[in-house]
């Protein structure tokens, strides 16, 4: 195993070194042949369609939220199942942890619906307006903020939910105490939701140059 590990790390280093040297070579080539302005990150970003930004934002929003929820559910769920072998009473009570995780996915769905309402067909012959670019960027970063905060929130709720199940199985009185911590964990997803709403609040629907 040690051999294969060293081999894979060696090939990974080789790959990294190749990519880095190619990038340096291309950069120097452009610079020294007087075409350095082609190396233009800002221009590249502006050439991306605002639709692309907006749809990426929406898919990050729902995708990361669902990953967070699913991850949390399996962390909490396996411990609930294991604990319920000896103390079946915990199974129904600890479904609350599963619901808390599920809520995270629902946040993602709601935000994805709100975001996607802003996407309209642009029929203007003059192309996208400045406002459309703003909408695209705000949906991207808003969606990313919602998705990431829901992912982390789902993990936090899942781990505390697992703690709650194990603690409840050992001592009934501990359930409410751990649940309070779990509720605090589940609130952090809501913060992401609020910020996502605020960020996209001023964004107009796509309309094009009128």
């Amino acid at each position: 195993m040690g051999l294969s590990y060293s081999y894979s790390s060696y090939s990974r280093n080789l790959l990294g070194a190749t990519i880095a040297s190619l990038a340096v070579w291309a950069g120097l080539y452009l610079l020294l042949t007087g075409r350095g302005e082609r190396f233009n990150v800002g221009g590249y970003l502006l050439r991306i369609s605002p639709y692309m930004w907006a749809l990426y934002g929406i898919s990050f929003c729902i995708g990361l939220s669902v990953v967070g929820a699913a991850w949390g559910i399996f962390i909490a769920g396996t411990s609930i199942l294991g604990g319920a072998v000896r103390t079946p009473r915990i199974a129904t009570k600890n479904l609350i942890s599963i619901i808390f995780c599920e809520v995270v996915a629902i946040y993602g769905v709601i935000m994805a619906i709100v975001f996607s309402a802003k996407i309209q067909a642009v029929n203007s012959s003059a192309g996208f307006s400045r406002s459309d670019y703003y909408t695209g960027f705000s949906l991207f970063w808003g969606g990313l903020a919602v998705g990431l905060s829901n992912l982390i929130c789902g993990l936090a709720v899942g781990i505390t939910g697992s703690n709650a199940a194990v603690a409840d199985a050992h001592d009934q009185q501990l359930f409410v105490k751990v649940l309070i911590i779990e509720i605090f964990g589940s609130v952090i997803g809501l913060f992401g939701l609020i910020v996502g709403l605020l960020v996209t609040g001023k964004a107009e629907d796509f309309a094009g140059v009128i």
Partner: protein
Amino acid sequence: MNEIYFNAYAGYLEGVVRGYRDGLITAPQYLNLTQCETMDDLKLQLATTDYASFLQNEPSPMSTSTLSARCTDALVAEFQYLQQNAAEPISKFLDYITYGYMIDNVILLITGTLHERDTHDLLEKCHPLGFFDTMPALCVATTVQDLYSTVLVDSPLAGYFRECLSAEDLNELNIEIIRNTLHKAYLEDFYAYCQSLGEPTASIMSEILKLEADRRTVNITINSFGTDLSKDDRAKLYPRLGNMYPEAQTRLARVDDVDQVKAILEQYSEYKTILAGVSLGASTGGNDVTLEDRFFVREVQFNKDSFEQQFHYGVFYSWLRLKEQEIRNVVWVAECISQQQKDKINNYTSIY
């Protein structure tokens, strides 16, 4: 980051093993057990514990050896349930736990064969957790080379035998040396494996295994007094880990009697308390606390501590150790009851 992945492999099993932990006999239950006058009373009291289903079909005058066997059956049933439901990294950890029992079984069979005992009796005495397929064939081996090349080379213990192959013939002393060498190799291997599992398993298991290594070191030292074992050979048997490695071990390797052992151990803060009021070696009878009991108390404490954290493998090892301690306790109480020695009945190591 371990919390995020752990439950994918072992979440269910951890829940189950914590359930087992909650089934351990508690202090009030022990109090009830010690109040019993006859074995039937004891059996009635044990009916409220996890042992109930294993004891209910036993005919009424139950001997302590039957009680011990049935309790072990309960332990084995629970452990095998864990093994059957385990998937990769956790199943390997559980396998590692059984290697210790395998070593004991191998030694039991070799010793038994040396004394020409009946093979079937020996196989019945083997611990069920340490059973492996080629084990019955051990009874035919007469030299260490035979033992290794015909039987053990296919068992998981093969790697541990590397250091024992130099021993020529099987006699009382050599078997004891083989046993300790095997345990030493096993302990070092298990320790290295636990370290490779990463935190928090590594730190929790290292505490427990270090204590185990220290206990072996002290026991080897005390048991080697008055035997043919040379001091160099004694030093070779010490596990190369633990709180006594390497400084205290090099000093223990040179001592000649129990008082010197005590003098050395008293210089180390963590073992000072263990030794207080202990009669080392020569037992004078009565209610003396033995060093073994003190180590048991310390071990129980460490194993209880490992349940304070979630998402690590240590709980599986700790539960098994606590359950074994519980069986020792129950058997002790049963012995005291059946031999009418009620004054010693409280000398068990309470767990919860």
